[in-house]
């Protein structure tokens, strides 16, 4: 009986062999197939639309210029509806039926985490998902990431605040899920190093509508620095409540609130808030000429302002193209990964930090910078800080 079990295991092992390793699919004489899983019908649909705009913009640029080493790039988009079950089917379709070379810029941390094993098994390179988690680049397998996890953001925020003023009454208001937990773990680890503690901690449930008791507690505790692990609506809700009761500490949020939509939604109350981020929000009349030109080109093409997701979509496609170009005409999965692991993409017009990948480090950069909302525009107040 036991013998038979072992035999079965061996047989299974051999059967699984062809599943491992590199697929070397999706590259023909004239084409490179890139897949992406986006949320076209669920809660993140607006973000996915922007991301795809950015990706397509860069893709059309390279295709118009003759492609990557003579090969045009074709982007295959699958809809997940931000549902992990649908995302799994999409991942299987992309890797096994469409036979893509790489998947790039998939939307959402959970979606990227659930589907990565499918791509790994199929030997498809997994590039730059739009999600933040250590699992998206560790262990360093066939996956590469750019988005800084909240843990590192928390450390970076504390480091930057300590640099300006060490003596503070630290407090926090965070969403009681992965966002808040990861962020506070980072904050606590940096605070411990500095010999400080968070005096008052408050949380809220995702999609909460009322923050009066949390803000009253923060005010009662006499906080002068409040770290916000909040997303768009909850940030504005908190700031509105704080203004109402006359509570004005230094509010510092994360990339979850760093968006051009924040001042649009909240108006004057958002003025002065700080947030950590990696890419810089482009504006028509701010930043370098290259950034302004990019903004104008995006506006002309899509008739709407580019947000953070447009910037990220563009960058994801840009890095993918650069790595493929560097690999050369003989584009195989193995060679592509080797290229990625010895690549460094310098700071670009969109304001990302230098992205350096090695054999053991598959996240481009863990550094963040801090910006402040001034006159309704995000203005950087620090350079990149390595947490």
């Amino acid at each position: 009986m036991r013998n038979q079990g072992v035999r079965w295991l061996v047989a299974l092992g051999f059967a699984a062999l062809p599943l491992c390793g590199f697929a070397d699919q999706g590259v023909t004489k004239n084409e490179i197939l890139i897949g992406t899983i986006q949320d076209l019908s669920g809660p993140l649909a607006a973000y996915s639309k922007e991301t795809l705009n950015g990706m397509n913009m860069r893709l059309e640029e390279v295709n118009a210029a003759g492609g990557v080493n003579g090969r045009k790039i074709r982007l295959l988009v699958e809809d997940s509806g931000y549902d992990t079950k649908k995302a799994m089917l999409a991942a299987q379709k992309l890797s096994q039926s469409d036979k893509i070379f790489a998947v790039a810029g998939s939307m959402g941390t959970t979606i990227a985490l659930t589907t990565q094993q499918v791509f790994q098994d199929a030997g498809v390179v997994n590039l730059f998902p739009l999600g933040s988690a250590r699992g998206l680049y560790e262990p360093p397998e066939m996956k590469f990431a750019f988005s800084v996890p909240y843990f590192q953001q928390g450390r970076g925020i504390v480091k930057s605040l300590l640099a300006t003023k060490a003596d503070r009454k630290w407090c926090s208001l965070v969403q009681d899920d992965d966002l808040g937990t990861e962020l506070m773990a980072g904050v606590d680890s940096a605070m411990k190093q500095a010999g400080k503690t968070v005096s008052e901690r408050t949380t809220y449930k995702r999609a909460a509508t009322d923050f009066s008791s949390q803000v009253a507690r923060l005010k009662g505790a006499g906080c002068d620095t409040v770290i916000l692990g909040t997303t768009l609506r909850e940030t504005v809700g908190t700031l509105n409540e704080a203004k109402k009761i006359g509570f004005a500490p230094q509010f510092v949020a994360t990339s979850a609130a760093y968006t051009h939509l924040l001042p649009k939604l909240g108006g004057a109350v958002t003025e002065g808030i700080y947030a950590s981020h990696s890419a810089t929000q482009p504006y028509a009349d701010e930043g370098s000429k290259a950034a302004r030109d990019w903004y104008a080109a995006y506006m002309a093409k899509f008739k709407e302002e580019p947000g953070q997701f447009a910037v990220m979509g563009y960058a994801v496609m840009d890095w993918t193209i650069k790595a493929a170009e560097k690999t050369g005409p003989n584009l195989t999965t193995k060679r592509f990964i080797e290229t990625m692991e010895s690549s460094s993409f310098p700071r670009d017009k969109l304001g990302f930090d230098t992205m350096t990948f090695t054999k053991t480090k598959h996240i481009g950069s863990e550094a963040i910078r801090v910006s402040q909302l001034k006159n309704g525009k995000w203005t950087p107040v620090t350079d990149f800080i390595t947490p």
Partner: protein
Amino acid sequence: MDFLQQVFSGIALGCIYALIALGFVLIYKATETVNFAQGELMMLGAFAGLALVKFAGLPFWIAVLVALVGITAFGALVERLVIRPVLGQPQFTVVMLTIGLGYVVRGLITMVPVIGSETSAFDPPYKGMVWKVGGLILSYEQGTVIAVTIVLCCAFYMLFKHTKVGIGMQAASQNQLAAHYMGIPVKRLNGLVWGLSAGAAGLAGLLLAPFTFVHVNMGYIGLKAFPAAVIGGFGSLPGAVVGGLAIGVVESLSGYYLPEGFKDVAAYVLVLAMLMVKPNGLFGTATRKKV
């Protein structure tokens, strides 16, 4: 002073729960089913107001009025097209239908260009203004919520006590068949009840919009209104209001005085306690169906 401030905030929040709970109870009383799309009707009301201001360029107050009339008509239409055809089927059918309706409404809204998948601000003209009474601070938004809830409750009271339609509704809710034999147009009244209930939900949505903005998932707050209705006793209108206020105040106070995290479970703890102590709710009457 902190205590009073928290109570005030709690009452304002509780009024929103109460308005949605009123919708639950209205429909439950009249048709003995629970409308699980109540939160979505609320969201729809807010979106209607937003669209009228944004696309039709109507002034705020007119947009609010038109949105309310529209959502009331929509409620009556839903009753006619979706609910009435399955009349006489088990209650479970209607419950499933309303859950499906919620999904459909959310899906359809997401498809609306520009505003459908975004979070939008829908600011009333009195946005950001506050009253300061002693050390208490009450925003105009909160004041409006409380005032409107009081007015609506009075209006419902008058309707059910002193008008023919209201008394007809009461009769129908006690025994549909008997009411029908007495010449009360039960079907038409059911349509009206759905309309009123949708109107109350839409009003809640419009009042909630300045706090939480208009977005497709705003209807999930209905999950808190449900315990409100249970606490009040599911078949009682005053109960819904008291239940809503109780949950609002308990949430607010527990968020301030109890350890972190209690705010989010307070509403459900209250319901559990209520079900143990007084299973029929505060104002519920113990009724037994005769078979």
